[in-house]
């Protein structure tokens, strides 16, 4: 039977700026940063309290199952903000919102009361959007 989630994939347009965003701005940790030859890179990061959950920062680039047309389509969709990749939670949304804004994170929606708690929406350096929530206790 399925027991847990170990890898999650986020498609990014530049791994250097994604590294800076997820590590230096969001405060995630590097799990694996391995050069794969010919400029390719396997880069995974983990949220602060989930060191076993690897978030793959998957570069959208030609190669393997990604042909030129697919790359163009994916790039357009990501830049357009089509993909909402995940929900992150925090202990205190207002404090986390203030801190991330200070670090330059762009928010699409400020902290707003929802039936499940409080929620804000931010986008990463590529254009993927995320929910940042403080859930009702």
């Amino acid at each position, binding site marked *: 039977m399925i027991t847990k989630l170990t890898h999650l*994939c986020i498609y990014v347009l530049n791994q250097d700026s994604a590294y800076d965003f997820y590590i230096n701005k969001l405060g995630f940790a590097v799990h*694996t940063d391995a*050069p794969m030859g010919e400029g390719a890179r396997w880069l995974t990061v983990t949220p602060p309290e989930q060191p076993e959950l690897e978030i793959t920062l998957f570069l959208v680039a030609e190669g*393997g199952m990604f042909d030129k047309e697919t790359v163009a389509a994916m790039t357009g969709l990501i830049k357009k903000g089509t993909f909402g990749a995940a929900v992150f939670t925090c*202990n*205190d949304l207002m*404090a986390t919102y203030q801190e991330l804004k200070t670090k330059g994170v762009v928010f699409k929606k400020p902290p707003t009361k929802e039936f499940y708690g409080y929620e804000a929406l931010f986008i990463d350096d590529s254009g993927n959007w995320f929910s940042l929530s403080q859930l009702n206790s």
Partner: protein
Amino acid sequence: MEQYEKLYLYKRIVQSKLFIDNNFAENIDLDNIADQACFSKSHFIRLFKSIYGKSPHNYMVSVRIKKAKKLLAEGVSVLDVCQRVGFDSPTSFTATFKKLAGKTPSEYGSQAAEKKRAIVVNPLSAVPNCFAQTHGWIK
């Protein structure tokens, strides 16, 4: 006005937290941080803990250990790491590291070095096959 005051209060606590993030290796006077944030020490600790789940001191220690892990994974010696993250002695550093990380700094550094070696020898050992195939790294 109440909303504005609450935001202002959050800003002061967040600035204090960011100050700890950027100066964790220094001998930080937490009384001074409370003063600069315009709180009494006890009020500052209570607010900080309510937001971050830890006292300012424990938060500072956790930041030091997080940085220590990064340096150990880069191959920096235990003694150098101890000094660079702001611990007074290798003994206190080792005890605190083991308490928070579940292993000694040496053990952590050795395991990180072994993982690095394994990736150099075979980079694909770190990548689930499904992703390696998607990338075209294996047929």
